[in-house]
């Protein structure tokens, strides 16, 4: 036995971290079964049919001992590998043929899981389970009649009154998405009930409101491809499938090979399943609009891209999206699996992949994963397929640019960010001359604006000189300003005549001598206040702010770190000077005066000032809408600042909400257990940990205050939007001009963006907004944006 030396590597933490596996024989067998089940259908030397046969025999032998485990594994496979649905239904079919009882138990287990999924609002698992159950009809495990009964119950749920539209829509969507699998079987055996079901669905679809449709579109116009609402699209695809007599050719159906065995099996009837009633806490999936970029004419010779209304298109897209979902945490695996798509020889794979990835990136209201997730997956795809992927991506970029005139603002931003990021990984190589249409368009037109914003973002990822190098001579006007400060008190300028010059120079000397904040205030003390006598409120002296802010930030201009250190060192001075919203806006104005050519610097400075509570969110919002920076109003960076401000406020509220909930729970638990706790020691410890009623009360007050601030912020923002847009509309009306200028389109787009990007938080204040701001007498163009937002909550 060796003596342990101090600092021996293997201490308790390590032991605890390394999982100890108590390997018993049973466990080993369970693991082997699990791995056999999970891997069936993967690459193998034997045929799928023989693998399924073999596996069914192995499992049959183990049914008595490992029944529970097998039920769970198979159900898990149904949920987590929906693309292998037919493989597992075949397996279950074979097992059912061998052991009727097992078949019954499996159906029962799956039905239970399905009901739990509906109750737990796990919508995708529920839909995949439903599809699995439907496909079990094809395997003679479940009777068609009982499946139709379930689908009828779901239609009834869809036709309920006083429930959210999104709930009703989901039930119809779930039914429709099973029909590619089981449509043919139902058509052959139960044509009338199937027809009846479809008629009910059609009636439902014709009645349903789709006010959200416009809000979720990527482009405002429907050429070259209509942007269909997701349910409308699927219905069109199902209708076409029905026209083709449900002859569905895409899905692989291993059970066909076992027809003689399976049709000997006895079927089970599904128990009566009633969808759980709606509960206010339930959240349903949001509707979406189907993104289409390519049609078959865009893909050169080779496999044909299935048409927009073919069921194949739906199945392929769903499968590709689920690959992304499964591997989004490992970009290399994701790219590999996308390129190994099982039906890749039948379709123009790169086009489908690119379309699906952009569909996610441009998804409204927001993409489900980080923008950079998609960007980095695209880079991996280009690495793995260098002879085809980059070209398809370039074509997609071209097409997106070509149609950018009608692209919504949120997608425009994402497109800018993605393209500059992508270029930065490929030495910024692009044929800018191809886009020389930009040279003859108004600078506010989306095309030249796109190039300009891409250059600004690209400059952030590289440097000014680089941008000069990558643009052709003709595009010289698109080179951004050099991101340098413009310090008006610099000795060279005509600074001598400015009222703050002397103090500014003095301040520079003082700060360089490593002075204290008090000494800074002393330098500023004697600066006159340019505001008139009556207005003087306390300490707000715009000249002091001017000299201090511009001088300090100029001294810290070398890098972000230098600026942050400066702000931190003289935070006290900021707090003294920024004692009112007006003063805070003054600080922001002076920051702008110094740094207006360095957008990225302004973004990080505002962020820092919010973080250190030098300025409040409301001050930033009011500054953004102020006339003084009207010239910047349509520039992306300003909205970058607004959204980071809103997000900060949202995060603050979310954090306090979380803390309060936790505290309340702790309190409730402690009170519960203290009634039953006999152990004195434990009681003391719990008492020490539990929050006091007072603490909880204080947290409640804090949260209330934060929510009031949040509400106020949204009110300010929306009110300023309404004012500025109404002003424009009235003026155009008076002057007899067309209101639909570029400025108008950008501005109304930015309004919509605020609603969509923050809809979860904004919806808390919907009724206030409706009562105070978005009233019926508002211009219909503006009111429409609000109504679209409201419709999202369904």
């Amino acid at each position, binding site marked *: 036995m060796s003596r342990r030396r101090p600092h021996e590597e293997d201490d308790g933490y*390590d032991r605890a971290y390394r999982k100890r596996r108590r390997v018993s024989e049973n466990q080993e067998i369970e693991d082997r079964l699990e791995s056999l089940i999970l891997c069936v259908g993967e690459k193998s030397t034997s045929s799928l049919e023989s693998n399924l046969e073999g596996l069914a025999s192995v499992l049959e032998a183990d049914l008595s001992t490992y029944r529970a485990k097998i039920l769970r594994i198979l159900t898990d496979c149904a949920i987590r590998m929906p693309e292998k649905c037919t493989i597992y239904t075949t397996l279950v079919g074979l097992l059912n043929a061998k052991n009727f009882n097992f078949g019954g138990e499996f159906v029962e287990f799956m039905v239970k899981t399905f009901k739990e999924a509906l109750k737990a609002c796990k919508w995708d698992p529920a839909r995949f389970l439903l599809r699995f159950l439907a496909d079990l009809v094809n395997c003679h495990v479940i009777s068609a009649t009982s499946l139709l009964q379930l689908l009828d119950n779901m239609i009834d749920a869809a036709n309920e009154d006083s429930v959210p539209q999104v709930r009703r829509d989901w039930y119809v969507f779930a039914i429709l998405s099973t029909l590619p699998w089981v449509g043919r079987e139902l058509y052959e055996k139960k044509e009338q009930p199937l027809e009846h079901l479809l008629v009910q669905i059609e009636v439902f679809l014709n009645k349903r409101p789709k006010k959200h449709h416009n809000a979720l579109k990527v482009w405002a116009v429907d050429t070259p491809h209509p942007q269909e609402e997701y349910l409308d699209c699927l219905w069109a695809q199902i209708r076409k499938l029905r026209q083709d007599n449900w002859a569905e050719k895409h899905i692989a159906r291993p059970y066909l090979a076992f027809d003689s065995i399976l049709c000997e099996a006895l079927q089970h009837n599904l128990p009566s399943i009633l969808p759980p009633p709606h509960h206010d806490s339930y959240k349903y999936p949001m509707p979406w609009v189907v993104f289409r970029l390519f049609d078959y004419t865009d893909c050169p010779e080779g496999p044909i891209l299935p048409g927009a209304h073919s069921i194949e298109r739906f199945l392929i897209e769903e499968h590709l999206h689920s690959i992304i979902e499964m591997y989004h945490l490992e970009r290399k695996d994701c790219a590999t699996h996308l390129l190994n798509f099982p039906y890749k020889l039948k379709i123009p794979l790169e086009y489908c992949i690119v379309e699906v990835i952009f569909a996610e990136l441009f998804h409204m209201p927001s993409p489900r994963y980080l923008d950079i997730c998609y960007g980095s997956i695209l880079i991996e795809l280009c690495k793995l397929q260098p002879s085809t992927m980059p070209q398809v991506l370039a074509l997609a970029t071209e097409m997106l640019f070509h149609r950018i005139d009608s692209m919504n603002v949120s997608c425009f931003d994402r497109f800018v960010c993605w393209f500059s990021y992508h270029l930065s990984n490929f030495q910024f190589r692009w044929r800018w001359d191809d886009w020389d249409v930009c040279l003859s368009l108004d600078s506010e037109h989306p095309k030249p604006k796109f190039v300009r914003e891409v250059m600004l973002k690209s400059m952030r990822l590289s440097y000014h000189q680089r941008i000069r190098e990558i643009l052709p001579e003709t595009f010289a006007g698109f080179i951004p300003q050099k991101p340098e400060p413009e310090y008006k008190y610099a000795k060279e300028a005509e600074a001598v005549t400015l009222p703050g010059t002397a103090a500014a120079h003095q301040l520079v000397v003082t700060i360089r001598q490593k002075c204290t904040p008090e000494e800074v205030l002393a330098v500023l003390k004697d600066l006159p206040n340019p505001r008139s006598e009556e207005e003087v409120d306390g300490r707000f002296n715009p000249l002091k702010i001017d000299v201090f802010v511009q001088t300090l930030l100029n001294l810290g201009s070398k890098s972000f770190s230098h600026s942050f250190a400066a702000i931190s060192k003289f935070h006290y001075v900021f707090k003294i000077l920024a004692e009112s919203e007006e003063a805070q806006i003054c600080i922001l104005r002076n920051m702008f005066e110094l740094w207006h050519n360095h957008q990225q*610097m302004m973004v990080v400075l505002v962020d820092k000032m919010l973080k250190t509570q030098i300025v409040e969110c409301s001050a930033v919002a009011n500054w953004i809408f102020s006339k003084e920076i009207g010239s910047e109003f349509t520039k992306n960076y300003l909205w970058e600042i607004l959204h980071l401000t809103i997000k900060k406020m949202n995060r603050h509220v979310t954090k306090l909400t979380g803390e309060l909930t936790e505290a309340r729970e702790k309190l409730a638990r402690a009170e519960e257990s203290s009634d039953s706790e006999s152990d004195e020691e434990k009681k003391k410890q719990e008492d020490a940990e539990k929050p006091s009623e007072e603490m909880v009360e204080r947290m409640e007050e804090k949260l209330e205050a934060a929510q009031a601030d949040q509400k106020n912020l949204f009110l300010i923002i929306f009110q300023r939007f309404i004012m500025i847009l109404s002003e424009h509309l009235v003026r155009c009306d008076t002057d007899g001009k067309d209101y639909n200028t570029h400025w108008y389109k950008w501005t109304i787009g930015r309004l919509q963006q605020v609603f969509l990007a923050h809809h979860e938080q904004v919806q808390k204040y919907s009724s206030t907004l409706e009562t105070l701001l978005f009233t019926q007498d508002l211009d219909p163009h503006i009111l429409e944006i609000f109504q679209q937002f409201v419709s999202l909550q369904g």
Partner: protein
Amino acid sequence: MVSIGISSIELSSYRDQHFKGTRSEHDKKLRNSSTLYVGNLSFYTTEEQIYELFAKCGEIRRIIMGLDKYKKTPCGFCFVEYYKRADAENCLRYINGTRLDDRIVRTDWDAGYLKGRQYGRGKTGGQVRDEYRTDYDMGRGGYGKLIQQKLGTEVPTFLR
């Protein structure tokens, strides 16, 4: 469902030799860290460029540029601290192995910034790797320091 290779967010095999503590204390810190080491930067890559790229994974608490111990100029690495570990994980997933300033950057977990760790540990003040490497890297001062010393300031044409 079959994953190829190890997870992007796992600990690498590198351990800072200067870490004060046991291996398992070190590992614990790495597993709870929201600080990343970023390597293979050019000497000319700025804090601003790093901010722009790394902010795509989440809110950055701060960036600490790696500096030459004597010259106090950037020597090709930095630390990026996030507020949330989840954001640092995303960095390992989506930024590690992609380009910044035209160079493939490498990101790895770091146990946490301490005063002094921002300096290169090579004999001549930069990173150790720049002492001994034999390739010519324009973004990292040209040849490795050892070679530069051996050849003096004059680099023969056949080696340029």
